[in-house]
């Protein structure tokens, strides 16, 4: 493809797995679908991922159960564990795979959160990461001591301050005290941490030594200009939404690299991992059929009506999911916080107009429209064609790896590990064994940003 030249001919494909927490894309109705809560489900997924030499296992976070028009939303998979607690349990039964905890900066206290992340990092031998997310709405704040105290414009300022304090805490112990015995001296004293700013008043003596990877790895998932700047300045990995169209992914990658350089970093310092789904079949037609089946089952009639009703701001459960969109306009201007931060403030009439145009152009029912909107995420094909697609994405420089959301648990990674990974390995585009034990090593990252001159990459 001359349109997208291969710029990194030796780049390897990397995989992470995102164990979906709250979502409507896991086909829980399938007979093969296991518990979404039992530890055994998480255990099987992470063991499969580690067998497949994945870099990392991700858990999300949400701090209030979603609602639809004032009632708890009852159609989605819901009920997830606290990420750091669950990952600590998983750390003891795995040896190599990275452990990524999504943790909100608004409703956590910096000293406590930094300590919990570092605790996971030490116990796992240097495999922890923090996916930094922000929220500001009072709806989420209703579960916390301070309530909805933070102005929307300050959410990234708060995140930056929180990260700065975390880094001071992670840097406080003298070198060597957290490393394996015999690898360094434990002389010296622990630095005191002091931060006094508009948003923080923090004074403490830390208790947590460094792990073999120095700091937990920083992930960031925001896609707004502010979010991209935050990632360019701080993150080791950006968990992007640009994983469907190669041209779009390349544009995103160029933007992230420009921003990283502007932030004074090497352009390859921020690794790009779009979220994606992968569906394989024995033949192209078989894969297509499976993909269609999965998409159809991800969107039940009730879910389709709920998603459209959420934009229209009213209960559409009496509508025919196989019929057309409502003829009238949405009754609300924009979405509140009750569906989660990613949709807060969305302008409903614009979305409705776009959907209506698409439905008319392609003659789609309500359910077909929702399925159509969901269907652009990911890769499908034979193991060979999927492997070749993934390699093209990595070697054109669009991405560094993929964060896979299985459409079913616990068996959803089996095909990928058993059929796609060997194809990648045959093409020399995937490792055949772990070559290190830290997440920093798997991702090929340099030393933590605050310690570039002090220590080398792990």
């Amino acid at each position: 493809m001359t349109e997208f030249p291969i710029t990194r001919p030796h780049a390897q494909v990397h995989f992470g797995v995102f164990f979906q927490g709250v979502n409507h894309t896991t086909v829980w109705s399938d007979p093969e679908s296991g518990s979404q809560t039992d530890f055994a489900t998480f255990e099987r997924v992470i063991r499969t991922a580690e067998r497949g030499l994945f870099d990392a296992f991700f858990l999300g976070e949400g701090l209030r159960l979603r609602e639809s028009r004032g009632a708890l939303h009852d159609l989605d998979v819901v009920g997830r564990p606290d990420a750091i607690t669950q990952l600590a349990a998983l750390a003891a039964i795995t040896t190599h795979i990275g452990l990524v905890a999504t943790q909100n900066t608004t409703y956590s206290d910096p000293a406590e959160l930094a300590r919990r992340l570092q605790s996971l990092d030490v116990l796992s031998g240097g495999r922890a990461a923090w996916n930094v997310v922000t929220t500001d709405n009072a709806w989420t704040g209703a579960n916390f001591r301070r309530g909805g105290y933070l102005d929307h414009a300050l959410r990234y300022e708060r995140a930056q301050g929180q990260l700065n304090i975390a880094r001071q805490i992670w840097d406080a112990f003298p070198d060597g005290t957290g490393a394996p015995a015999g690898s360094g001296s434990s002389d010296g004293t622990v630095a005191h941490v002091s931060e006094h700013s508009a948003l923080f008043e923090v004074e403490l003596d830390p208790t947590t030594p460094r792990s073999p990877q120095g700091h937990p790895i920083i992930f960031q998932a925001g896609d707004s200009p502010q979010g991209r700047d935050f990632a360019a300045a701080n993150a080791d990995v950006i968990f992007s939404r640009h994983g469907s169209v190669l041209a779009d992914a390349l544009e995103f990658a160029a933007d992230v690299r420009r921003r990283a350089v502007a932030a004074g970093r090497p352009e390859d310092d921020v690794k790009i991992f779009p979220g994606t789904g992968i569906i394989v079949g024995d033949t192209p037609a078989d894969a297509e059929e499976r993909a269609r089946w999965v998409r159809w089952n991800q969107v039940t009639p009730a879910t389709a009506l709920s998603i459209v009703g959420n934009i229209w701001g009213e209960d559409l459960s009496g509508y025919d999911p196989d019929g057309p969109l409502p003829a009238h306009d949405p009754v609300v201007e924009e979405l509140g916080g009750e569906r989660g931060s990613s949709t807060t403030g969305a302008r409903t009439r614009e979305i409705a107009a776009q959907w209506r145009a698409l439905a008319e152009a392609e003659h789609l029912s309500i359910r077909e429209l929702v399925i159509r909107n969901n269907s652009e995420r990911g890769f499908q094909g034979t193991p060979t064609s999927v492997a070749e697609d993934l390699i093209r994405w990595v070697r054109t420089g669009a991405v560094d790896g993929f964060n896979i959301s299985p459409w079913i648990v616990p068996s959803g990674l089996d095909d990928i590990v058993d059929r796609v990974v060997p194809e990648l390995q045959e093409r020399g585009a995937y490792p055949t064994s772990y070559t290190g034990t830290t997440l920093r090593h798997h991702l090929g990252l340099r030393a933590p940003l605050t310690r570039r001159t002090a220590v080398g990459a792990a």
Partner: protein
Amino acid sequence: MPSSPFFVGLDADGAGAHPAAAAVTGLSGADLVSGARLARTVRQAENAGLTFVSFADALLPAVPGSPAAARLDSVTRAAFVSRTTTAIGLVPQVPTTYPEPFHVAAQLASLDIAAAGRGGWVASVTRDAATADAYGRAVVGDLAREARDVVQVVRDLWDSWEDDAVVRDVATGRYIDRDRLHYVDFVGESFSVKGPLITPRPPQGQLVVLAADGDVAPAVGSPARPGPAEQLVDVTLVGGAGVSTAIGNAAAARERSPLAGINIEVVLDAGGRTGAERLAELRASTPAGVRSTWDTRALQHVGSAAGLVQLLTDLATPGPDGHRPVDGVRLLPAVLDVDLPVLARDVLPTLRAARLVAAPRPGATLRESLGLPRPANRYDVRAPAAAVSV
């Protein structure tokens, strides 16, 4: 016959409960926080037949600036060993004073899920003002009242999902039944929480809540909570300068919680040295500027394993009225690596042989090991009384 087994818990924090434990053992910060060491210690405690291990904790170090004061978060430690053990209870200490109750509830529920019902919680209070500075908050004045509100709302949140809230009703597309999830709408004196929790009800329904006597104020009735005040603490831990004082404190604590046990600091004869010699060395090695001292509120046993066996036998043997003086003990070993082997070799086997204590069964919940019932859900309208009339 006593209705519940006599429990023997052990605090398994760091180098040991004495502030000089790290200094006398020469353990480095890295040793103190090593996952391998943690897993080995807890496995040893499980093999010894102990009912539970607790993990003492505080946000700030006992000795500011000292790498030997290294310590990891307690819930994270407990979760780490949840899958390397099968029988022993795992009981992190989590303060009620500054952490977010919503996070505490989710973390502990998650621990109980990972540990298949072996989770507990030492609900403690934080007295020093330095911790308030670390959180950037005003110092909490009424610690017991704040602890009461936090334990109350955490318990509410654990019940905010009924056990069978996940219905997976393919016909209607409903994953959960929203009628089986509940807003807790808690309004305390210093904070409020809406709920429900993000994590389902833990396997035990309610984790076992332990607290030092007096740390958690008793629940009070309110218009929102008619009926008898709830017991917020399952196991009250008492101290006392002497055995009879401690027994008296436990008897008084039983009025306020289902079970009462005695905290006992132990410095055992070991390695050819007497407990008294070891304690003298620990005292001499205590670092300057240490924040916490060897807790003089606990009962102490300094001496032989046989002497400790005798003390525990006295505490575990029912009197003429059929009741034990106390329901159990939590041992605070001065130095874990020295005292735990003696407990495992010379103390617990003797008590088990005399049928005074029983090792927890693999797969048993901590509630089962302590003889505590699994509580009904406070929000379940199909409560036993209602069920009878159906």
